[in-house]
């Protein structure tokens, strides 16, 4: 194979650039609050990482410029509601950097996806703030007011389509009505899908995880849909709602915490896909990506061990 060789820093940067379309769609629907969150996240991430590296007595500059902490920060910032108060993202990113990454020895040594660890921490600790999404586009002024607590957020928030799945169905609203509701989710997911395709073409990520993850989602949701189409949504709903595409191309593909063998990646992705649907449908939280990814992170050493490729001459 001919390879255009990228170094680790360039890989991190390319992944961050590839997020642009999805982030753009978020900004289009929710406003510039997304940028404020990203900005807060990056600053927090860099400061936390620098402080921790100093405590560990390691060199600060190479770790700061490798782009990995910025990527973690951005991923977490775009996963949380864009109108969450400022301390949510600050707390989440600090937690992600310290307990998700530095405590294990920094880049390359973390068993869990740091951004998802931060997300799970926030979701469990602050469920209210973590589930209030903006109902409409917010202007810059409104965004600043909301994030820094200068004005009341009542009236600005709404539930996401995944929330509706949990609550509205019991109130007699049909699946069809719900599916129409999620136009913003659709475009955001398309944005991340396109970014992911770019990463695939640049050979920065391998096809196995995204393809198997999306297949997992389709297989599980179709199975449920076939059982009862009145109670369960179609696979298309699951594919274009929540963080499905972000998970498939940007989160589950984090090489450090993912399986590293070719067939192991298929198993890893597929099981995440299955779990996403199961947790969304039967679990207590609206979105399931973080838990699904973290659960599979734990199994990576096992998967890697049992999926070693056949070695030449053995």
């Amino acid at each position, binding site marked *: 194979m*001919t390879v255009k*060789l990228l170094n680790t820093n360039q890989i991190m940067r390319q992944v961050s650039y590839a997020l642009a379309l999805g982030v753009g769609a978020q900004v289009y629907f929710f406003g510039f609050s997304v940028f404020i969150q990203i900005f807060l996240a990056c600053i927090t991430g860099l400061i936390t990482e620098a402080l921790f590296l100093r405590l560990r007595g390691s060199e600060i500059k190479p770790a700061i410029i490798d782009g990995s902490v910025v990527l973690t920060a951005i991923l977490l910032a775009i996963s949380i509601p864009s109108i969450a108060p400022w301390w949510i993202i600050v707390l989440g990113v600090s937690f992600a950097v310290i307990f998700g990454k530095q405590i294990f020895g920094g880049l390359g040594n973390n068993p869990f996806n740091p951004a998802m660890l931060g997300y799970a921490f926030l979701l469990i600790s602050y469920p209210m703030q973590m589930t209030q999404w903006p109902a409409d586009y917010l202007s810059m002024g409104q965004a600043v007011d909301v994030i820094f607590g200068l004005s009341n957020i009542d009236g600005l928030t709404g539930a996401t389509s995944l929330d509706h799945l949990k609550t509205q169905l019991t109130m007699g609203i049909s699946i069809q009505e719900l599916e129409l509701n999620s136009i913003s989710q659709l475009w955001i997911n398309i944005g991340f899908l396109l970014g992911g395709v770019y990463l695939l073409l640049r050979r920065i990520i391998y096809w196995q995880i995204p393809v198997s993850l999306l297949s997992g989602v389709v297989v599980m949701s179709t199975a449920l849909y076939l059982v009862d189409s009145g109670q369960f949504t179609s696979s298309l709903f699951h594919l274009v709602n929540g963080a499905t595409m972000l998970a498939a191309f940007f989160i589950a593909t984090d090489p450090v915490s993912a399986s*590293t063998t*070719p067939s192991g990646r298929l198993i890893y992705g597929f099981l995440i896909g299955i779990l996403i649907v199961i947790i969304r449908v039967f679990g207590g939280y609206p979105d399931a990506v973080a838990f699904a990814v973290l659960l599979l992170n734990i199994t990576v050493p096992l998967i*890697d061990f049992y999926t070693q*490729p056949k070695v030449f001459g053995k």
Partner: protein
Amino acid sequence: MLKYKYNGGLKLDNPYPINEIDLIRIPLPDKVVLPMQQRIGNQAIPIVSVGERVLTGQIIATIDDQRCAPVHASISGTVVAIDEHVYAHKSGLKGLCVTIESDGKDEWVDTSIGCTERYETCTANTIYNKIRVSGIVGMGGAGFPTHTKVRLAEGCHTLIVNATECEPGITCDAALMEAYPTKVIRGIEVLLHICKAERAIIAIEDDKQDAIAALKKFCNNENISIEVMPTKYTSGAEKLLLKYLLGIEVPTGKFASDVGVLCQNVGTVVAMFDAVVENRPLISRAVTVAGSAVKESKNLQVRLGASYDYLLSFVDIKEGSHKISMNGLMMGIELDSTNYSVSKNTNCVFIDQLEESKPTKECIRCGLCNTVCPVDLLPQQLYWYSKSKNIDKAVEYNLLDCIECNCCSYVCPSQIPLVNYYQYSKALYKQQVKEKQQTENARERFEFRELRLERNKRERAEMMEAKKIVLKEKMAKDKAQKAAIEAALERVETAKSAQGSQDDG
């Protein structure tokens, strides 16, 4: 026909393109330094002494070891020193070398030994012997004595001539093939004659069109085919070549000869032709001199033992600090100076401009390395376990199957010198095995000693017991005898007294 394929490998462009692949014969060096140690096996023992005059082609050192080949004087002149020099090897260890100062005459010794008639009429054994005394070893880099390798493969079905040029940047084999295509073909015929293979395949990569044309022009033997393969790094590795050409995967721990294939480097084939047909021992070889600091790369046919400095005097070298390496960019080694001499397996000397080394980062398990590994290992896992010195785990992940081709280090986005870690782990493993063996030996010795002591004790006891019994028996016997004697005496006594009383009476 074909193709089987092996996974991984790298398509690499030649970093030092050469306009005209010529083989340039350079004048005799004033002095040669010939190392006694070849790659594996024991060191050859000099049979000349300081001050002695030697002729070109004369054997100056020999050893009775199948893994070694004798060393010949590569010029005529006087032996001026037999002393230790640092070898061009990673270890930086010193070894014995014979230094000869040229008299400029290049006077040859009579080398027409053994089978001097046409080789077709000679037995395989005669030819083996001739290859051995001609000092021929694998010239692709391994330096394994050819006579041993050919003998091991006796009865093989296929002969593969490796003309792939093992690494990008090296063109000495291509130069050799262009210069001596007939020698290549005739050399193969000699090999076919002795190893009795049915066919020979010349494996050559498609970036050597001139060499391919030259070989095709002179190849008129229907048992010899020329296989043009895509240029890909690590195709030159023997086992991978076999997989590619024949679809045979040599099992781990086995050799090509175990599956009925003999693989020879094209340079070795030419050297063998010279030895068997022209009675010329191995005293020179083709060396590629190239590098980013070399203005025009060249292939030089040079006498063995000539110094790198002498080689480099035939090319223009740019100013600045340089990095010196030999035997390739991927699997070669870096040297600290040019103060070394050409040996039988020196295929190239590269002089590169010194670049700032890129900082190493942590492994992010991106897995690029496992896509390029030609033997399907998981280099990132090997690295993880090597770094933590978890050697058992690394061995479980097939550390020992690593061919150290450096494809993984080449593509690593974090610039980790992966193969260095593996070499280190392998060394640790070897030590572990050795220590284990030693413990095992010690335990066995101890147990045997215990056993022996126990046995001695038992045997002694048994002996004592036996002695006792014998003694008892003897005593009983003695007693009985004594009793018998006493009884007899008594009888005599009684008889006497009876007689006495009779006499009295």
